[in-house]
């Protein structure tokens, strides 16, 4: 059995582990488009903030690929011939496959802003982007970051740590629009601003002028030695579309990660997978899911049949010492919102028909685990017990006992 | 009548001093959480302080402290040297002057009376007859208790089969925690011996251990009902207890929890006094009737034991008991322990088990009725050497209770009657009794019996004996050291060198 994986990210590594969990002798080939090995994309901001400390940001070491007998070809896949099951690469190589996994992940959006093509304007998505910035770091004093998503935030934090003055421009009404609610965003915004960030919300960049000037819609003019485009990402589906696979925003896959071609699978940020909260197939593009999806796709490619249990939107990020965990649905219409605040800690619980459907925890990591799992396992825990939980103080001690009983029953405690 | 003074002022300095080595203390608070006598305190600002006078030297804090920061010592203030008025006498008077009441205490007689076990030495074989190697030859510890009779004809009377000649003595549920009884009953079952329910009835959780239980019937008849008598291996009538001959049982109200009151069929939180004497035994023939009644109640299927404290004239008493139909006579020496007893009685009443046992064995043999009953020695058995000596003097088997409690963690602070036993033994408070994990208790109790069993086999092998039957009453194997001729004669043994 010959397995080929296009892409060398988290999903690819997961797939290797999945295949090897049953098929120890099939040969596996990874087509590494970025030619930089299996590094962890989120860590590029850590690399940017302290290149010596975070020199090695490999997700899996080279020995790992050695142990698992995986061949890595540093080249980009140009075309997939589905009938002959052959992939042709930039370097002219032709690779046959019995099973193919498309794990090309996503790529950054570059908004149609005039002047965005200048060299001091770039996206922040690959290790090269980070290395370029590190190279010119000495000359940069002032930066404009367009977009306050996770990537924008971590890039801004890295640059801030290097002593640069950060302007952040956000189109929406508040920062981290996909993760936070207005109140939590305001709470975080106040912390970041007081640490010296210039956060401008509800504004758009209209023109990037050549003499390091950035003009906003309101006419305000910012000077910047560097501009970071962090307005979001989209799944890298070109290859899939070109091979006439069924693609919507991401590649459409069934519960076993099979695309419309039974020999081709897709996993990670590129694929649309089940969001348990909305019961829809969506592109969630989250690292923890990528590893799970890759692993299960690998198992299924190797002959097992492991359906995807699906997961929920969740994220945990550290910004200037603060920890922000959020999971589950962003909106809570028809539900109830419970909040708890104490000094630098803020916790919001979203409850609907006696279930926790989402939460946002700022600096309350101790209870995060059980809260996430209450949401993902749709545990029936009444609003009353959540109110009591908040009243007693959101520590592990006060997690509603129902949670533990439900968990023990689900996990058949002690056996997993 | 005396009325307790309600002044906080205490006439004497505390008995013990609790020292905390600041260099070692890491303010982890384990001592505070573990001391039920509330000696240790830690304020919210981290300041730690102690109340010496509440300390009973149970060593719980010293043992659990992860950095050994705590040491309990005698309070340094010593009264002027006086061979008559010792510090204990003075303190006792101080306490009574304050309370006006009887001084209560726990465990056995601690006074420095001569300990005869420590004045007897064992024989060993040299040259003329070889010792037997217990590693290569089987060493038989199995012994039977009951009325064996003189002949093998006729219907055999019921008996108890012990794989090791050591049984766990009476510690009632209420006096000790349920976990203690769970540990000892399981250990008894696993090691092929018996445990005694004590006068507190049989707790429902221990039903499965009835088959290896000696159920006690005391003057209070606590928890005695047909089911209780049926679900047992033997029935023991408690006439007396070594620690408090002549007076009855006393379970302080603090220890009579809901569960205890249910098991004993008495009202909760009220003092449980079992009167002395049994109000239906005012002379020996009454005992005969009670024994006969119990035999009928148990359809002659179980041996009936009678437990008496070792007092003067014990020989005649034992002879009477055997002639009254008892199958097992239990003699409890004056070192025997108790959960609660007046200090004066515990320290001044009763005679040593060694002499009592020897007298009873000789007396029964002289009257030719030794085969009609087995003899069990109890009270202060501390080691397997004591067991061997007791059996050599004439006992069929021994009862241990203090030794078993020590195996489970007791540190002899003698405060059992308070119900605040920090080792979770002599208490029914759930927070405290939880401190004895019955699974660990079972292991510790089993190890004690196994260890003593091995030691007994080693010593028997050294004497050239490979069966416990040949050790029973084998007084030639004992020699007295530092004993006067009369004591030697009473014990029926020769002196060393003889």
């Amino acid at each position, binding site marked *: 059995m010959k397995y080929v994986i296009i892409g060398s990210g988290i999903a690819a590594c*997961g797939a290797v582990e999945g295949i090897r969990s049953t098929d120890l002798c099939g040969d596996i080939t990874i087509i590494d488009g970025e030619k930089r090995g299996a590094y*962890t994309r*989120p*860590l590029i901001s*850590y690399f940017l903030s302290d290149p010596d400390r*975070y020199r*090695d*940001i*490999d*997700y*899996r070491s080279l020995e790992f690929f050695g142990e698992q007998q995986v061949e890595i070809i540093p080249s980009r896949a140009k075309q997939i011939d589905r009938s002959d099951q052959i992939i042709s690469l930039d370097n002219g190589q032709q690779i046959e496959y019995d099973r193919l996994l498309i794990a090309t992940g996503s790529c950054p959006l570059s908004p149609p802003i005039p002047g965005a093509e200048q060299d001091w304007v770039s996206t922040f998505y690959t290790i090269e982007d980070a290395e370029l910035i590190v190279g010119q770091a000495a000359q940069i004093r002032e930066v404009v970051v367009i977009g306050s998503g996770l990537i924008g935030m971590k890039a801004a934090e890295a640059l801030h740590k290097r002593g640069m003055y950060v302007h952040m421009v956000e189109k929406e009404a508040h920062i981290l629009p996909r993760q936070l609610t207005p109140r939590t965003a305001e709470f975080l915004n106040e912390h970041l601003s007081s640490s010296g960030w210039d956060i401008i919300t509800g504004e758009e960049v209209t023109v990037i002028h050549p003499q390091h000037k950035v003009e906003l819609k309101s006419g305000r003019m910012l000077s910047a030695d560097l501009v970071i485009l962090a307005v979001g990402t989209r799944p890298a589906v070109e290859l899939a579309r070109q091979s006439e696979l069924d693609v919507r925003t991401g590649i459409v896959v069934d519960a076993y990660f099979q695309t419309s071609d039974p020999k081709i699978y897709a996993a990670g940020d590129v694929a649309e997978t089940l969001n348990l909260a909305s019961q829809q197939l969506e592109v969630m593009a989250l*690292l*923890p899911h990528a*590893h*799970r999806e890759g*692993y299960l796709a690998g198992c299924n490619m190797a002959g097992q049949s492991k359906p995807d249990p699906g997961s929920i939107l*969740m*994220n*945990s*990020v*550290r910004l200037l010492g603060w*920890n922000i*965990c959020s*999971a589950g649905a962003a909106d809570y219409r028809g539900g109830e919102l419970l909040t708890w605040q104490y000094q630098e800690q803020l916790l919001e619980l979203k409850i609907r028909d006696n279930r926790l459907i989402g939460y946002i925890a700022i600096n309350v*990591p*101790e*209870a*995060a*685990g*059980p809260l*996430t*799992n209450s949401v993902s396992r749709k545990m029936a825990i009444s609003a009353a017990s959540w109110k009591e939980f908040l009243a007693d103080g959101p520590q*592990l*001690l006060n*997690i509603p006992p129902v949670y533990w009983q439900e*968990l023990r029953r689900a*996990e058949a405690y*002690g056996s*997993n | 009548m005396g009325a307790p003074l309600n002044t906080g002022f205490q006439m004497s300095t505390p008995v013990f001093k609790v020292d905390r080595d600041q*260099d*070692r203390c*890491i303010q*982890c*608070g*384990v001592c505070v*959480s*573990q001391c039920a006598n509330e000696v240790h305190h830690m304020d919210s600002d981290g300041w730690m302080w102690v109340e010496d006078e509440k300390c009973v030297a149970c060593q719980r804090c010293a*043992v*659990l402290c*992860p*950095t050994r920061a705590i040491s309990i010592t005698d309070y340094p203030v010593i009264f002027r040297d006086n061979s008559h008025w010792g510090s204990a006498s003075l303190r006792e008077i101080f306490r009574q002057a304050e309370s006006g009441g009887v001084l209560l205490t726990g465990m056995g007689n601690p006074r420095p009376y001569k300990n005869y076990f420590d004045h007897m030495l064992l024989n060993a074989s040299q040259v003329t007859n070889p010792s037997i190697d217990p590693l290569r030859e089987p060493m038989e510890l199995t012994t039977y208790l009951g009325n064996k009779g003189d002949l093998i004809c006729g219907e055999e009377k019921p008996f108890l089969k012990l794989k090791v000649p050591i049984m766990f003595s009476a510690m009632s549920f209420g006096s000790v925690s349920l976990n203690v009884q769970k540990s000892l009953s399981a250990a008894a079952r696993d090691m092929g011996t018996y445990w005694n329910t004590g006068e507190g009835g049989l707790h429902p959780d221990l039903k499965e251990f009835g088959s290896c239980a000696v159920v006690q019937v005391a003057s209070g008849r606590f928890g005695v009902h047909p089911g209780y008598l049926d679900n047992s291996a033997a029935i023991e009538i408690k006439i007396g207890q070594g620690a408090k001959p002549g007076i009855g049982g006393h379970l302080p109200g603090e220890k009579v929890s809901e569960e205890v009151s249910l098991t004993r069929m008495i009202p909760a939180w009220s003092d449980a006094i079992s009167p002395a004497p049994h109000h239906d035994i005012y002379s020996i023939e009454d005992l005969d009737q009670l024994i006969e009644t119990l035999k009928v109640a148990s359809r002659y299927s179980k041996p009936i034991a009678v437990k008496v404290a070792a007092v003067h004239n014990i020989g005649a008493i034992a002879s009477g008991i055997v002639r009254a139909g008892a199958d097992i006579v239990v003699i409890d020496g004056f070192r025997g322990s108790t959960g609660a007893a007046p200090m004066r009685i515990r320290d001044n009443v009763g005679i040593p088990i060694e002499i009592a046992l020897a007298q009873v064995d000789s007396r029964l043999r002289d009257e030719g009725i030794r085969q009609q009953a087995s003899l069990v020695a109890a009270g202060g058995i501390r080691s397997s050497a004591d067991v061997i000596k007791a059996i050599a003097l004439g006992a069929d088997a021994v009862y241990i209770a203090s030794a078993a409690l020590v195996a489970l963690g007791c540190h002899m602070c003698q405060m059992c009657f308070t119900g605040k036993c920090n080792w979770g033994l002599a208490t029914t408070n*759930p*927070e405290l009794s*939880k*401190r*004895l*994990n019955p*699974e*660990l208790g079972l292991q510790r109790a089993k190890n004690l019996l196994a260890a003593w069993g091995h030691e007994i086999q080693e010593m028997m092998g050294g004497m050239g004996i490979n069966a416990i039957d040949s050790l029973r009453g084998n007084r030639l194997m004992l020699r007295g050291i530092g004993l006067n001729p009369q004591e030697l004669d009473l014990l029926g043994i020769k002196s060393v060198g003889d």
Partner: protein
Amino acid sequence: MRMKVISIPEYCLGCGLCEIYCAAQHDGFNGNVLKAYKTGQPDPRSSLIRSRPVSWFNTCMQCEEAPCLNACISGAIKRDRDGIIYIDENRCVQCYTCVMVCPYGHARPSSRSGRIMKCDLCRDSEGMPACVKHCPNGALKLWQGGEEQ
């Protein structure tokens, strides 16, 4: 061969010795409680949940499909040959994703140092895990693939 420490609340006295010995067994103190608490920054890997009437030691369940291992963005959480899941400290970037996904709330940041605290079954020292060895009442057991130690 799967191993983990399980807590038996029935016998847990809530005394806290497990935390003390756990902290002393890690970070180079190799079991010396005094040194750990007097000179170092002791951090217990598991935390004792003290509550009435029952306390319990929140240990790691060493899950078969470990959510923390899957979710770790830097690949710092690994499983060694004995199946023990541990954190490679110098790879960890303290992003708390593992804290967010652990169903038992076991993985958590240390209040003192912010490092992620997670039980590694004292894999660097011989014999029983320190908490199991020092529990005064047998309330912690090393569960080993079906039978307890």
